[in-house]
């Protein structure tokens, strides 16, 4: 109802608009006044907000449904703007407006889970985001209390080990692709690096398990190092991809100048190409770490879970943050369920903070130290 009143100027000459619309002409047709779209959107949100408000007041739902308001309000807006434009502007412009609003709706819909997720994690995670959480393990803890120190240590050790394995291999492979690679081997590596990016993380975990179970003869092997190997399988292709892109950005003139001065090729790569692109390489590695630090499935099956501290990568089960979140949530039961759930959310918050910091820091480094080519 509000939507029709928001377009007084367009409805002053309905005859002309309708005729033009019937001809399909674009230029003769009346246009909706500027800002109609925004007004319609606001009106739609108000209408659905009012509806949900009535539902809330009637006691049919617990609390005002903000997500529902935005979602259904935006859908209502899509329909409203299309009908309005069809009446005033003609079929073609109506379709254009419909697509514009649908495309914007798609973006809003994608934002909803992100906003809702961050809000939920903050809301639930802050309950146990305290010093005890970062200084205590879960050993001998029943009920409330305890913390995730053992999981944080495990995550740092396993991810660090995975980085130690992946960065040299990935960096050398990308150097090969950019500086040396010609022919079938280079093409094969490029293709299969892309394919490897799509390996499901759980398969990487199974691979590391199968490898070490056969190598050590222990059919129930669990250790942090096996977890690090499985993470490396996921991390190497990411490092190769990002480093390759960065190394290709180094201008060929620099290489040629160095070679012309008689510097051997390997020193050219080490002293010219790598220092020029170091910021981009660091960014790539940080994004790769951010990608694997939240992996749960492979660590759940090869590093296992435990309540105690374990600093030794090469023996026994090792807790990691994602697995900690998973086990705390799924094993929450009985009298102290809420304490475990709170610990799980605190773990999720820690994990998200780590990943976001890595992402932002990586992008900031890339922006600040990006090589500038004055032209």
């Amino acid at each position, binding site marked *: 109802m509000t939507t029709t009143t928001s377009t007084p100027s367009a409805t002053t000459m309905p005859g002309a608009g309708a005729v033009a619309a019937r001809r399909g002409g674009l230029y003769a047709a009346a246009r909706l006044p500027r800002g109609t779209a925004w007004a319609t959107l606001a009106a739609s949100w108000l209408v659905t907000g009012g509806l949900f408000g009535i539902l809330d007041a009637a006691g049919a739902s617990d609390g005002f449904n903000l997500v529902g308001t935005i979602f259904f309000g935006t859908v209502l807006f899509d329909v409203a703007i299309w009908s309005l434009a069809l009446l005033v502007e003609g079929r073609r412009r109506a379709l254009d407006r419909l697509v514009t609003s649908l495309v914007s709706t798609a973006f809003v819909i994608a934002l909803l889970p992100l906003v809702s997720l961050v809000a939920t994690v903050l809301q639930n995670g802050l309950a146990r985001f305290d010093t005890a959480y970062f200084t205590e393990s879960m050993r001998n803890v029943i009920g409330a209390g305890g913390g995730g120190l053992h999981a944080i240590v495990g995550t740092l050790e396993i991810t660090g080990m995975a980085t130690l394995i992946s960065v040299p291999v990935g960096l050398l492979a990308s150097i090969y692709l950019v500086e040396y690679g010609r022919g079938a081997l280079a093409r094969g590596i490029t293709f299969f690096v892309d394919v490897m990016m799509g390996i499901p993380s759980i398969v990487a975990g199974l691979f590391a398990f199968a490898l070490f179970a056969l190598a050590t003869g222990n059919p129930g092997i669990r250790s942090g190092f096996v977890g690090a190997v499985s993470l490396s399988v996921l991390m190497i292709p990411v490092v190769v991809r990002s480093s390759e892109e960065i190394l290709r950005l180094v201008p060929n003139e620099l290489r040629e100048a160095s070679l012309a001065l008689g510097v051997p090729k390997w020193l050219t790569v080490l002293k010219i190409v790598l220092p020029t692109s170091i910021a981009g390489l660091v960014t790539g590695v940080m994004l790769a770490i951010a990608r694997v630090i939240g992996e749960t499935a492979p660590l759940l099956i090869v590093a296992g879970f435990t309540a105690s501290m374990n600093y030794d990568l090469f023996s026994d089960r090792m807790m990691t943050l994602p697995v900690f979140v998973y086990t705390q*949530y799924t094993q929450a039961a009985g009298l102290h369920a809420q304490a475990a759930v709170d610990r799980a959310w605190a773990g999720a918050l820690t994990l998200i903070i780590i990943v976001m910091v890595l992402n932002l820091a990586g992008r900031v480094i890339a922006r600040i130290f990006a090589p500038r080519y004055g032209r």
Partner: protein
Amino acid sequence: MTTDTARRGGIRLGDRVFAGSAATAGALILIVLAAVAVFLIAQSLPALGAGPGELPGTAQNFWVYVWPLVFGTIWSAFLALLVATPLSIGIALFISHYAPRRLAQALGYVIDLLAAVPSVVFGLWGIVVLAPFVQPMYSWLVANLGWIPLFAGPVSGTGRTVLTASVVLAVMVLPIMTAICREVFLQAPRLHEEAALALGATRWEMIRMAVLPFARAGIVSAIMLGLGRALGETMAVAMVLSPALVVNMFLLTSINPNTIAANIALQFPEATGVSVNALIASGLVLFLVTLGINMIARYIVGRRRAFSGANA
């Protein structure tokens, strides 16, 4: 003379060592990929020949055991793509052709942030936020549209159904699909777009005539890469779904077919003996399926790149 050859020899040595180690690292990647296949096959063999009684549950042989899981994997991934494909094309269009140019990059980062959220956090969110949010809608669907087989009851009381899991999956595959669509949309020839606009096309007509035909191959490969991700995603499904070993297509009941990856994550910590081999063998099936899908997708992308010359 002697110093000259010595130095040249030294140069050659350094070069040879460096080039050799670089090539080795490259080859190592291919070896790792081959090793994944070899070790998975080696550990799967005991399960492939296992008879009734040895496998988990009451399965007669491995294929009977793995079939419901394969079905569940494909079914949930299909539903996820049904949600994610139009959304990701819309978002990519919004960022590439609708949003103000200065905002576009920032909006792209925001979508990329979705990719950074760990899957276990998505799982928690799916259980705690999404499932209770959609459950009333499910009840309404079953009550009013229950005559459609897909929406047949009884409705799940927790909302933890295959549809909810697929929505979480869809959110998780959105970033990669959006990134690829965005890239191909941006590669569409500028002159074609301007020509279409100059001829009086509206923005949507311009996109339909100049952008979408150009981007078709890219969209297909984005869908396939998204499919690869959705097939292999583990924790979100393992946490959100209330699983069973069944084959059915009901969207809203509490008896849902499990996926391969989620089944491995749930069963592996307690498995022993042949059960471990059976889980690894199901992982091998998953590996082969995703490998095939990814190879097709990358082949399409690579062919496109060779023709367009934009990414040379």
